[in-house]
């Protein structure tokens, strides 16, 4: 393992597994690997995945509850449990997201990509266009990226960072209604309710936010699988093990 200094001057952990044709003439491919996603970041990703799934399912059933439970009210607590799961998962997402912001400061340079798409860089936008063309089947080959590709970075920011921030804020605003006036959630997030009109409007926006995130998840999962197969680098295994594998040694 060696240390590589990339263009931006960041040091990367790099390992190269290489071999040319062996004695029997079997063709071998050279694979370069870079350590991209550190352990806390990967943990955050999967914790968020599980929480968001929980939030979407429980949230949907809070809005459109399951059929009526039989028996006495005292024998059942279904809505109570569903709402508890929703609030617990909401807390986890929020705390994990705060931790993720912290990691953007102390983690490696890739930990910052999510929050800081270089919107004023001409090169960035050129590569966004290139990536769009690749998805429209106009470009034959995609470029290689250690972190997110520019389009991915843009989508991550616009869909995920904006979406989850919106959901955390509106979510805690709605949660504050249950905790009551003067509670910490009311002091920190209660202002959202009059800002959006009234409580029912916040509910409407929170519902729309869920569908926004569901749309993001659908595209995110599809693109991750597709790129894992079709691009020149690994994606899914990278978020599990942290190492980005490159499938070829050709220049970008």
């Amino acid at each position, binding site marked *: 393992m060696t240390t590589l200094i990339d263009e931006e001057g960041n040091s990367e952990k790099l390992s190269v597994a290489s071999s040319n044709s062996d004695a029997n003439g079997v063709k071998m491919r050279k694979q370069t690997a870079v350590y991209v996603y550190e352990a806390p970041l990967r943990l955050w990703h999967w914790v968020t995945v599980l929480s968001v799934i929980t939030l979407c399912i429980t949230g949907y059933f809070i809005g459109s509850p399951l059929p009526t439970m039989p028996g*006495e009210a005292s024998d059942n607590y279904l809505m*109570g449990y569903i709402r508890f799961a929703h609030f617990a998962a909401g807390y986890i997402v929020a705390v994990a997201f705060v931790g993720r912001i912290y990691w953007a400061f102390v983690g490696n340079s890739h930990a910052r990509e999510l929050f800081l798409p270089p919107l004023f860089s001409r090169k960035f936008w050129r590569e966004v266009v290139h990536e769009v063309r690749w998805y429209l089947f106009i470009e034959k080959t995609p470029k290689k990226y250690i972190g997110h590709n520019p389009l991915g970075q843009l989508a991550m920011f616009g869909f995920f960072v904006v979406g989850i921030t919106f959901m955390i804020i509106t979510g805690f605003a709605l949660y504050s209604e249950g905790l009551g006036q003067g509670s910490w959630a009311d002091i920190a997030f209660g202002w959202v309710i009059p800002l959006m009109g009234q409580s029912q409007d916040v509910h409407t926006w929170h519902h729309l936010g869920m569908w926004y995130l569901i749309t993001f998840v659908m595209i995110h999962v599809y693109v991750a699988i*597709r790129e894992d197969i*079709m691009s020149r680098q690994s994606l899914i295994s990278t978020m599990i093990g942290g190492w980005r594998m490159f499938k070829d040694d050709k220049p970008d």
Partner: protein
Amino acid sequence: MSQIETFYEVMRRQGITRRSFLKYCSLTAAALGLGPTFAPKIAHAMETKERTPVIWLHGLECTCCSESFIRSAHPLVKDVVLSMISLDYDDTLMASAGHQAEAILEETIQKYKGKYILAVEGNPPLNEDGMFCIVGGKPFLDQLKHAAKDAAAVIAWGSCASWGCVQAARPNPTQAVPIHKVITDKPIIKVPGCPPIAEVMTGVITYMLTFGRLPELDRQGRPKMFYSQRIHDKCYRRPHFDAGQFVEEWDDEGARKGYCLYKVGCKGPTTYNACSTVRWNEGTSFPIQAGHGCIGCSEDGFWDKGSFYDRLTDIHQFGIEKNADEIGTAVAGGVGAAIATHAAVSAIKRAQHKGDQE
């Protein structure tokens, strides 16, 4: 001897015994959530304080607030609060009419400059210079501004004055606006509801007279003592909500058993009011107790939030009225179809170029 009678003097004059008066004071203390030690303080205030002059204006409204107010349940409240406050001008309740009534209004404003409470029922329409609501030959808008100028405080009675209510509902042709859009330099206490609960109205006034200051208000200017919790928080059907037991149809078993009305559009979880605790008509009942969901009448813009029987608001920007979940399902479905198509094209392209790669 002061010019204006004290509250106590008024009560005695009306034949109320001291015993009844003290009972009233302790009941009021309890109603305001103040505890027993406050009863003598209220009694003291009532015995020594002069009556506060109140001007009650009516803009675009239906008089349901007045109707509610005069039905305030506790007999003493009904008989006395109207006498306690020196209700100098209220065109629906006062005996005088026409020029005489308008003269009283002017006199009160001049005589008690900066001391009177302005209670506003209804709201001003702004379109066509306020011509959609004329009082005494002049636009209500002018009367409101004039009376508000020298008021100590302003009470916005009901959803009309607080939020706009039905006359401000889409498309609002008269451009009716809540009074805080017109009165910007005075403290405004919003007492929303269509109408507000009688005891809430008299409770707010009693608090202001007793303590000589405004009740504690929330972010939107509503008295916290009555509007700090949702109907849902204190609803007697709440255990059925937590248990997941709902009325699914109006004639089903759940409706007969008094299950939660959430699924038939009850707005209790998004409505701040005291209905589930104070209730209506001498504490007899309130809409949910009568088997109908809350329609959220004390919330901002409740007419424009879609059907009374749906939990989610219609979103009009989409042309056809759709709610958030319908839009979301359509978008997710569309994205899903797009992904499937894109995946298929990707697979075909990949198959075509398989040979080129090495």
